């Protein structure tokens, strides 16, 4: 009854009014008749007098029949809509700017949420942990490593006891897989038998990998599909169970499908298939201590802390370290300090509720920074809008005063002002939401690697929706605040001058804020652009143009004879080198920037350093464009008695003496240095060249060929496959790319930051210009009369122009200064992302300042021109 009827009555107001009138009319008629019978002179008037104020009673009756505040709200809304319709340009500009700002922020936030904030879709993810240990210190500093060998994992698993259940998971790699005749590259993750049990994942069909699938290498040909893979490749048909799937040459049986929504432990690299660790490519992966391929996760028993688990497993870990490398030295006294420190590495158990993520590691700083950038743009947009709303409110002060005169309460006025700003904010939010959903995938695409695109579950998540709503609420409060304050002050017949002065000030305050914030953004994006440019143009020590990289791997089981396989690699190299259009060909175990590396600690006279080891073929230096400064290159079929070092290593080990011909200790033997190469970047473009030890041609299971040619990758790929087929070598091409692509891959973050931050700061600058333009236009419009007078009295144009600009220049200058200080303060946080540029470098400041000054002048040009053009006679007439 009550509420619903009162709500419905909101829409029946006309009928209600008619009913009230009818009821009152009846009363008045009866009263009139009665008075007439009694002999009154003017019965109708008398009746009306006795009845009282009809309008007021109708109003009271209406109030009794409606939901009061809702009625007010609908009124305010209708009024706001009418206002919006009357000023479409202002509304579109305001809502558009807000939509852009909110959309940008929400897009960044949704990627952040998907990559960083969301937990794995398993029960009690907060009880999951991941084991880590301090990584070997790189030239730049240490990081935490989490790759373990399988035998070590086994010992850890046994020793965890009741405190936790451990499982191992490999990284997710794209591998060729085929069902029937269809071949495709799918993402595969190898997991130990108890993985699914520990995680708590349920099968959607069939069964998942069990502990009994993980006992003997090569003896458990089973595979589990992910739900998405099952839908996409098998049409979600139950027939998929029991079918055979070929994975990297091995036949596996599909035994089950995982629950929907589970994509493995690596966020951003969802797995399509899971196979038992025992089925990994070669036996050595699970039997040798030298191969560290697995991340070790565990689920803590209730009441057990991560530190307890780490302490419990520490002895096993330390023992394993000793076994692995302690044997190279005869006693502890002989070990270099680095090795000693390494042997004392502490095991730690880190929370793994969010799984692991290479994507996250690479981009979390950048993403947070982008979120900050977008937030700043949002603030600038809000300032702009507040200014617009203020101008709008000023124009309506007459209306506000009338309302106050008619008896509107302050709260009523405030409610109306906030409804208007809320409407615009709502429009902006809706636009922003749509923009966010559309652009989040685009943002992700910017961050992608082409061969392994990051697949995150982006989508209208509750958190994103909540974020947008929150942004909208904040925006509407912010937008409405000043006009509301202004409305509160409105008094009938308030002083005009007082109002004008006040209005000018707040407009300038907003300009100040916008200029300051835009400065920060512009300076920031200049820093990123300069960094990117530095990275792109730095001399890398190798020639990256016209260079193709091909990853090859031994197809099928490894041939028993080592020399045979080496001969095959060398043979292929010569074949490719002989192809038309190929200017050089060589191979190495990894490409220079692949992210894989093999290291060896070196120490000499108290200093220690981490040297990189790279086995390369003959002709490597020539193909890569790295100069050999002294000595010679390896000869084909070299025995492992010779070594080539680079400048950095030579300087460290041999000092300023020519190293060619000298002996160098490696792996307990003494090798002869036959050549000295220039320094070339390795592993990371940002780090300076590390000391490098190049070993002759010792690659077995896999290698990367570097091919110097102007042919396209697709073209070369076809020719390479043909040569392989012709030679009959048991090798397979896994991937073909250009060196430039590989370089670009390592700089994705810098690219993204540069591009997006400059996009956002451009928007902010435009908004700031709009702000300046708005303030000056208003000024000129208001003071046309005064300008006319001055001009009539003989003021030169330049003075007028200066006066107009002078209105806003203190605000701008203060804004520049404040922006500079703010940037100096915040620049610390960007230090890690810059390259070749210190955060205190003056160049970005100058760039930002210069740009803003130019933009401000350009923005102010039109109002200034208008002021100059004011003809005195017209202005004076218009007073």
């Amino acid at each position, binding site marked *: *009854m*009550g509420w619903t009827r*009162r709500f419905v009555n909101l829409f029946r107001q006309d009928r209600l009014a008619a*009913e*009230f009138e*009818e*009821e*009152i*009319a*009846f*009363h008045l*008629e*009866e*009263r009139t008749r009665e008075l007439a019978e009694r002999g009154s002179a003017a019965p109708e008037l008398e009746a009306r007098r*006795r*009845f*009282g*104020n*009809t309008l*007021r*009673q109708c109003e*009271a*009756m209406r*109030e*009794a*029949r409606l*939901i*009061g*505040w809702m009625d007010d709200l609908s009124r305010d809304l209708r009024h706001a809509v009418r206002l919006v319709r009357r000023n479409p340009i202002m509304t579109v500009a305001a809502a558009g700017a807000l939509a852009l700002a909110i959309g940008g922020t929400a897009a960044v936030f949704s990627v952040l949420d998907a990559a960083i904030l969301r937990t794995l879709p398993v029960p009690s993810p907060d009880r999951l942990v991941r084991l880590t240990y301090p990584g070997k210190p790189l030239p730049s500093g240490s990081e935490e490593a989490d790759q373990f060998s399988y035998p070590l994992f086994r010992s850890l698993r046994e020793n965890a006891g009741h405190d936790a259940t451990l499982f191992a998971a490999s990284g997710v790699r794209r591998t060729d897989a085929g069902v029937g005749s269809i071949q495709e590259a799918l993402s595969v993750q190898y997991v130990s038998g108890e993985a699914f049990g520990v995680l708590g994942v349920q099968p959607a069909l069939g069964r998942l990998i069990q502990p009994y699938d993980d006992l003997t290498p090569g003896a458990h040909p089973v595979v589990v599909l992910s739900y998405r893979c099952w839908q996409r490749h098998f049409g979600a048909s139950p027939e998929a169970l029991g079918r055979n799937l070929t994975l990297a040459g091995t036949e596996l049986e599909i035994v089950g499908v995982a629950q929907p929504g589970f994509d493995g432990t690596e966020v951003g690299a969802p797995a399509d298939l899971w196979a038992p660790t025992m089925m990994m490519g070669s036996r050595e992966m699970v039997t040798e201590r030298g191969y560290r391929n697995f991340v070790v996760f565990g689920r803590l028993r209730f009441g057990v802390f991560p530190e307890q688990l780490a302490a419990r497993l520490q002895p096993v870990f330390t023992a394993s370290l000793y076994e692995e490398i302690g044997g190279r030295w005869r006693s502890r006294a002989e070990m270099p300090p680095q090795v000693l420190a390494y042997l004392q590495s502490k095991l730690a158990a880190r929370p793994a509720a969010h799984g692991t993520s290479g994507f996250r590691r690479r981009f979390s700083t950048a993403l947070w920074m982008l979120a900050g950038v977008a937030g700043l743009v949002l603030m600038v947009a809000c300032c702009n809008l507040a200014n617009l709303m203020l101008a709008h409110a000023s124009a309506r002060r007459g209306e506000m005063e009338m309302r106050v005169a008619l008896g509107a309460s302050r709260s009523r006025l405030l409610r109306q002002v906030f409804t208007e700003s809320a409407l615009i904010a709502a429009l902006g939010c809706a636009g922003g939401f749509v923009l966010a959903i559309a652009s989040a995938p685009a943002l992700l695409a910017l961050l992608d690697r082409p061969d392994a695109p990051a697949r995150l579950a982006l989508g209208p998540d509750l958190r994103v929706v909540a974020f947008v709503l929150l942004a909208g609420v904040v925006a509407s409060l912010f937008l409405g605040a000043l006009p509301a304050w202004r409305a509160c002050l409105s008094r009938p017949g308030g002083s005009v001058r007082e109002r004008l002065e006040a209005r000018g000030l707040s407009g300038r305050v907003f300009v100040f804020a916008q200029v300051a914030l835009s400065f920060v953004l512009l300076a920031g994006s200049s820093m990123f652009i300069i960094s990117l440019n530095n990275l792109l143009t730095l001399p890398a020590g190798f020639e990256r143009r016209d260079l193709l990289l091909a990853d090859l791997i031994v197809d099928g089981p490894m041939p028993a004879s080592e020399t045979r396989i080496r001969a095959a690699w060398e043979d292929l190299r010569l074949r490719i080198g002989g192809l038309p259009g190929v200017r050089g060909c060589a191979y190495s175990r990894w490409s220079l920037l692949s992210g894989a590396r093999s290291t060896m600690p070196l120490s000499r006279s108290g200093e220690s350093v981490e040297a990189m080891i790279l086995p390369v073929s003959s002709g490597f230096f020539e193909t890569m464009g790295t100069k050999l400064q002294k000595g010679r290159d390896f000869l084909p079929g070299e025995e492992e008695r010779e070594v080539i070092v680079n400048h950095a290593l030579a300087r460290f080990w041999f000092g300023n003496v020519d190293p060619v011909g000298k002996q160098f200790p490696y792996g307990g033997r003494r090798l002869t240095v036959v050549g000295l190469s220039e320094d070339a970047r390795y592993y990371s473009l940002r780090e300076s060249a590390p000391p490098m030890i190049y070993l002759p041609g010792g690659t077995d299971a896999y290698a990367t060929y570097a091919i110097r040619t102007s042919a396209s990758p697709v073209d070369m790929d076809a020719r390479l496959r043909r040569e392989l087929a012709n030679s009959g070598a048991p090798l397979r091409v896994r991937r073909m790319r250009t060196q430039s692509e590989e370089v670009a891959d390592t700089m994705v973050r810098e690219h993204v930051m540069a591009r997006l931050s400059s996009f956002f700061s451009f928007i902010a600058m435009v908004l700031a210009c709009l702000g300046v333009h708005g303030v000056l236009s208003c000024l000129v419009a208001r003071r046309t009369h005064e300008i006319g007078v001055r001009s009539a009295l003989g003021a030169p144009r330049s003075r007028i122009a200066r006066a107009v600009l002078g209105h806003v220049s203190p605000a701008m200058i203060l804004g520049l200064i404040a922006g500079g200080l703010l940037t100096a303060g915040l620049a610390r946080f960007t230090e890690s992302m810059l390259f070749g540029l210190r955060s205190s470098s003056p160049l970005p400041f100058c760039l930002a300042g210069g740009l803003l000054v130019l933009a401000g002048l350009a923005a102010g040009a039109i109002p200034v021109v208008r002021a100059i053009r004011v003809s005195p006679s017209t202005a004076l007439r218009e007073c």
Partner: protein
Amino acid sequence: MVRTKTDFESALDLLVLKILARRGPMHGYGIAQQIESISEEALRVEEGSLYPALHRMEESGWIDAEWATGEGKRRARIYQLTVAGRRQLRAEEERWSRVSGGVSRILEFA
């Protein structure tokens, strides 16, 4: 939503409920007449203020209303007491007698 009633309004409510209980269903004009005649013209309420009170009571569920065609073309809205209205009337009567009893006792003994 519903602001607390003034004393005047609660007194008016009580009168309306009592009249409807005694005299049965009637329209607003009739109720106004009754108030005048019963109180011997001592209570001449501003007639208009009766109607918002009637509508308020109708929203509260104490009285029900219906349109009825009387003589002539004009329709009239007839109000009648509901069960809840009767309960409210009893409660209000008790309250009034308590209050007025207290006041008279004070006047006697103060």
